[in-house]
């Protein structure tokens, strides 16, 4: 391995798009349909002869299908490089990993930036509102197309964790095990509030053009940057921000103006600026909406345990982080208690870290060791060689 290369550069990787005929539309929770659905996905490793080693990785709000391989747009390593790969906690020499871009996303799967086959124009705001359950439906269609009846595991953090819970509620018979990291069984008022700030920032940008910017040749970058900056604060902890930046200045002395004097300002501006290069503003509206609508208990008569009643045979592992205030440990505990009440086989670990919500994306040795233990022993039980 030479400089700049990562183990991910040596994984057997395939990028593809699954296209579904217009006669087989995707029916959505809202009652609307999507015709000519496309699902962009990557696979890593090889499906075994028994088709028993497939792991579906569900990505978070601002991620994409490039979980273990370089993002072709940014050239950066996969967002879950620490976890996926040869010899990693989810070992691509042993498992066949699938990661698809979510419905409503902007990395190849049908979303508001896609062309509406009915009009030949980008959907924009004519794209129907989608839910986490709709995202999971699209993933299930992809698995059908790949000829995979049952997943060895479905794994995800943050919004990916919510998809994992939705999988357990809707398709428990298609799961052997499930890993839900730093997620929640529903969006709280605070979660919705932060998302609303982000959406309002986008919609307040004159270049948003009531969602029709793609056709009018504009880009609401300023709004999307502010949305990303606000959201990014929620992914970190106060302690992590303090440790990383404190009150450190960019240059010697203050500017006595509104330049980015403080390193933390410059960091957030940078996070916003690089985000708009790879993300679509309308996708951001749709995906945050899907998260706000997420409430697994409400869709099961108000009892979260009822959502897991059919998932008793699935091996669950739930992780939370002590400093995550976006989806705090108390939310994961609710999931675990509901799993216990439903009689499911649940494990739960709260990981001590000051890195906040984003800890699931970072090098967290305790998470990786526990994940390796859970996945490895589950694979032994499933008989995956």
């Amino acid at each position: 391995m030479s400089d700049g290369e990562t183990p991910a550069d040596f994984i057997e990787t395939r990028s593809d798009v699954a296209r579904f005929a217009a006669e087989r539309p995707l029916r959505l929770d809202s009652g609307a349909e999507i015709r000519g659905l496309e699902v962009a996905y990557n696979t890593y490793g090889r499906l075994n002869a028994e088709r028993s080693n497939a792991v579906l990785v569900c990505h978070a709000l601002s991620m994409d299908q490039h979980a273990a391989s370089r993002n072709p747009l940014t050239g950066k390593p996969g967002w879950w490089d620490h976890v996926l790969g040869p010899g990693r906690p989810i070992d691509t020499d042993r498992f066949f990993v699938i990661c698809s871009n979510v419905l409503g996303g902007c990395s190849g799967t049908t979303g508001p930036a896609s062309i509406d086959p009915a009009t030949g124009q980008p959907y924009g705001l004519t794209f129907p509102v989608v839910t986490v359950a709709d995202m999971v439906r699209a993933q299930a269609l992809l698995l059908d197309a790949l000829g995979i009846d049952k997943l060895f595991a479905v794994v995800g953090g943050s919004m990916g964790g919510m998809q994992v819970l939705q999988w357990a509620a809707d398709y428990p018979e298609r799961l052997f095990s499930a890993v839900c990291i730093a997620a929640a069984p529903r969006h709280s008022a605070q979660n919705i509030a932060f998302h609303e700030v982000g959406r309002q920032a986008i919609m307040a940008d004159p270049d948003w053009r009531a969602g029709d910017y793609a056709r009018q040749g504009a880009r609401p970058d300023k709004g999307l940057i502010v949305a990303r900056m606000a959201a990014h604060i929620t992914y970190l902890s106060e302690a992590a921000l303090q440790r990383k930046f404190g009150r450190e200045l960019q240059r010697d002395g203050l500017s006595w103006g509104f330049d980015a004097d403080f390193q933390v300002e410059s960091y957030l501006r940078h996070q916003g600026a690089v985000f708009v290069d790879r993300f679509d503003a309308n996708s951001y509206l749709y995906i945050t909406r899907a998260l706000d609508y997420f409430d697994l208990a409400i869709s099961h008569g108000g009892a979260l345990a009822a959502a897991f009643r059919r998932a008793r045979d699935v091996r669950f592992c739930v992780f939370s982080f002590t400093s995550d205030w976006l989806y705090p440990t108390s939310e994961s505990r609710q999931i675990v208690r509901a799993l216990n009440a439903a009689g499911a086989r649940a494990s739960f670990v709260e990981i001590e870290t000051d890195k906040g919500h984003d800890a699931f994306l970072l090098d967290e040795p305790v998470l990786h060791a526990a994940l390796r233990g859970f996945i490895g022993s589950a694979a032994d039980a499933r008989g995956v060689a």
Partner: protein
Amino acid sequence: MSVREDFREILRLVRPGSRVLDVGCGEGELLELLAREKGVEGRGLEISSAGVSACLARGLAVVQGDADDDLDYFPARGFDYAVLSQTLPQVRQPRHVLSELLRIGERAIVSLPNFGHWRVRFDLLSQGRMPLTHSLPTPWWETPNIHLCTLRDFTQLCDHLGLRIEACAALANGKPARPIDPTRASENWRAESALFLLSRADAPPHGEGATKADLFG
């Protein structure tokens, strides 16, 4: 292979193929032993993330949490046995935890050090200091035990909670377990620590014709 004496007793006690919740399961030694030797379907509750991680690597299903707060969320009669090994004096609400164990499990298996043991009484009497013994090895300022009790205290609490003592064995360091009647004053002097099999007094006794000999013989 050396197996802790109380684990050996629990292993003898538990019926093959039953469902067991181990409260304070540590790194999962007991659950693994029960799964291997008795085909038990086990679950664990453990306070430390390092303990839970070790359990995950063993393929066990374990939830991080503590007995005081998290037992409330387990469904009633979800288990044949709820095990609490040498942990009861460490919880904030022993009375609540004990009744929760018997809500969740048909039977509870509880082991605890006996503060009425003669050496404890003698040390306190002769030296006027908190005793240090095999079953109470840590000084007062670092012991996790906050609710120590004697055999008599414990059997009285069982009485108050309407619990039946189906069997009891005295445990001593390195010696085989000895079936005892824990309500006898002499055992309150002799037993260094004790293991109880408990059920609700209103429930039928442990199986047909179950005897202490069946459990500890």
